[in-house]
C-alpha cells in the first residue's frame, strides 16, 4: 500500500464545499431536536434514578479539631510561627514565602515560566495574615477569659526571637503529646504563653466557634470560605479524606469525585500533565500544565488555519465511513 498526500489544494477543497446543488431529502429539524431531547431526558432520569449523585458532608474545623486535636494544634502553631503553607503561599494571599523564595519543604508557591511571574505581578488580592487570621484574632474573641488575654498580651509583647523559641519548644512538646477523646495533653516545657494560647484555640475550635470566626468579618451574611478552606487544607483533615477516596493529585486529582462517579472526565488532559515527569514534579507544575492547556486549547480553536493539522482528516479518511452511503450512491463524490 502506498499512501500519498491528498490531491486537491485547500482552495479547491474549500470551493467544493461552498455550495451544494445535489439531491436533498425530507428533514424535520424541530422533530429531530424534540425526539433527541426526549431521549436524553429519559436516559438522564434513568441514570439519576439508578446511580443518584454523591454528597459527602463537608469537613468542618470543629470536626477536625475534635477528631484530630494534635493535627489541629500543630497546624495552628505553624500558622502562628509562619511555617504553614498558607503563611508562605505568596500572592494572591500574602507576600510570602519568607525562606529565600521557597516554602520550607522546597515547594515554590510563586510559580513562573521563563520570565513570566504573573502570580507575583498581580499581587495580593485576597490578603491573609496567617498568624492574625487563624490564631491571634480568634483568641481576641474570648475576652471573658483573663488567662487567654494575658497569654496573648505576653506573646505579642515578646521579641520575635523569644516568640520563636516558645513556638519551637511547644512544637517539640507536641511531638510527645497524648490525644484521647478529643483532648490533648502536652508535656510541660519552656513554651511561655503559647501553651495557654493553643489550648484555648483548641477549645474554641471544638466548640464550633472558630468555624464562625473565620467567616465573620464585617458582615452578617457570608459566602467567602477562603480563610477556613486554606486553614483546613494546611492540616490533614481534607487530605486524609481525599487519600481514602483516591482523590490526590497523583491519582488524577480533582477530575475525580467521591464515590464511583465519573467526575470531571473532560479534565483528563489537564490532569494528565501532572502525572508526567518532569512537569508533575516541577515546582512550577501548575503554570506549566496551565500554559500547555492554553496552547492546546488555542490550537483546537484554530485547527482550520493550522497547515498539516487541518489535513489530518484527509490523510486518515474516516470521512469515508461517515459518508459511506452517500459515496455508494454517488461514486463521483
Amino acid at each position, binding site marked *: 500500500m502506498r499512501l500519498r498526500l491528498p490531491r486537491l489544494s485547500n482552495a479547491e477543497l474549500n470551493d467544493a464545499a*461552498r455550495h*451544494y446543488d445535489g*439531491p436533498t431529502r425530507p*428533514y424535520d429539524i424541530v422533530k429531530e431536536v424534540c425526539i433527541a*431531547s426526549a431521549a436524553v431526558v429519559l436516559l438522564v432520569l434513568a441514570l439519576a434514578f439508578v446511580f443518584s449523585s454523591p454528597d459527602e458532608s463537608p469537613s468542618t474545623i470543629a470536626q477536625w479539631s475534635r477528631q484530630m486535636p494534635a493535627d489541629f494544634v500543630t497546624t495552628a502553631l505553624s500558622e502562628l510561627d509562619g511555617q504553614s503553607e498558607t503563611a508562605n503561599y505568596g500572592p494572591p494571599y500574602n507576600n510570602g514565602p519568607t525562606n529565600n523564595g521557597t516554602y520550607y519543604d522546597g515547594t515554590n508557591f510563586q510559580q513562573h515560566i521563563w520570565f513570566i511571574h*504573573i502570580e507575583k505581578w498581580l499581587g495580593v488580592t485576597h490578603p491573609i495574615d496567617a498568624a492574625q487570621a487563624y490564631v491571634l484574632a480568634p483568641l481576641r474573641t474570648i475576652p471573658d477569659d483573663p488567662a487567654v488575654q494575658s497569654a496573648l498580651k505576653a506573646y505579642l509583647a515578646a521579641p520575635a526571637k523569644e516568640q520563636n523559641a516558645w513556638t519551637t519548644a511547644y512544637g517539640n512538646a507536641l511531638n510527645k503529646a497524648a490525644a484521647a477523646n478529643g483532648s490533648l495533653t502536652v508535656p510541660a516545657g519552656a513554651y511561655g504563653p503559647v501553651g495557654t494560647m493553643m489550648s484555648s484555640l483548641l477549645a474554641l475550635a471544638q466548640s464550633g466557634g472558630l468555624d464562625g470566626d473565620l467567616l465573620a468579618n464585617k458582615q452578617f451574611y457570608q459566602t467567602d470560605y477562603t480563610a477556613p478552606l486554606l486553614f483546613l487544607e494546611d492540616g490533614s483533615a481534607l487530605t486524609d*479524606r481525599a487519600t481514602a477516596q483516591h482523590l490526590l493529585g497523583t491519582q488524577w486529582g480533582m477530575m475525580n469525585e467521591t464515590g464511583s462517579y465519573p467526575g470531571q472526565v473532560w479534565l483528563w488532559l489537564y490532569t494528565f500533565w501532572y502525572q508526567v515527569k518532569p512537569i508533575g514534579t516541577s515546582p512550577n507544575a501548575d503554570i506549566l500544565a496551565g500554559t500547555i492547556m492554553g496552547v492546546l486549547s488555542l490550537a483546537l480553536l484554530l485547527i482550520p488555519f493550522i497547515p498539516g493539522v487541518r489535513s489530518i482528516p484527509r490523510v*486518515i479518511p474516516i470521512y469515508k465511513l461517515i459518508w459511506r452511503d452517500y459515496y455508494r450512491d*454517488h461514486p463521483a463524490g
Partner: protein
Amino acid sequence: MSSWTARLRETYLRNLPPEKLLPDSQPAYMESAIYVFGALTIGALFTIIASGVILALKGPTWWHTSDIGHFFNSVHLWAVELFFFFMVIHLWGKFWMSAWRGGRSRVWMSGTICFLVAIPTAFTGYLSQQNFDSQWIATQGKDGMNALGVGSFFNVLNFGQMYSYHVVLLPAAIMAIVGLHLLLVRRHGIVPPIPLADLAATVTEPKA
C-alpha cells in the same frame, strides 16, 4: 437612508431566510448517525438548564436536605456528563469531516469556544455543591488558578462568587455561544462530503 431596524431586518433575512433557519429538507449526504450528536448535545443542554433552574429556584442548600432535591441534583449531574459525552463525539465527528471547509471556520470556532466555556461552567458547578467534593476541588484547583494569575479575580474558594458564575454568567455565555453556533450552522448549511477526487491519491494500489 433606511432605518437601523430595517437594515437589521434586511441583513438578517439575507443571511438567514426562514427556509434556511427552519429547513424541511437537507442534503442527501446527511444520513449518518454522527449527525444525531449535535441534537443530542442540545437535548442534554435543555435538561441541564431545566434541572438547574429548579435547583436555583430552591436555593443551594435544598438538595442536601430533600430527597427530591437530591434527585434533581442527580438529574443535573448526569445531564452534564451526557452533555460533554455527546459534545465531544460531535466535535470529533466534525473534525473527521473537516467541517470547517467552505467558509465554515467560524462554525468550528464557535463550537470549540462552547466546549471551552462549558469546562469552567461545570467546574464552578462542582465548586458550588457545598460538600466535601467542593472543598477538595477548590483547595486543589486554587493552585492552578493562582499560578496562572486567574486566582486574583476568580477565587475558587469563594462560594458566592463561584455560585454566581455557575448559575448566571457562564450559562448565559453558553446559551449565547450555542445560539450563535446554531445560527452559523443554519446560515452556512452542513458541510458537503470531501470529494472522492481528493481520496484518489490514497487508495490501495494492487500488488503487481
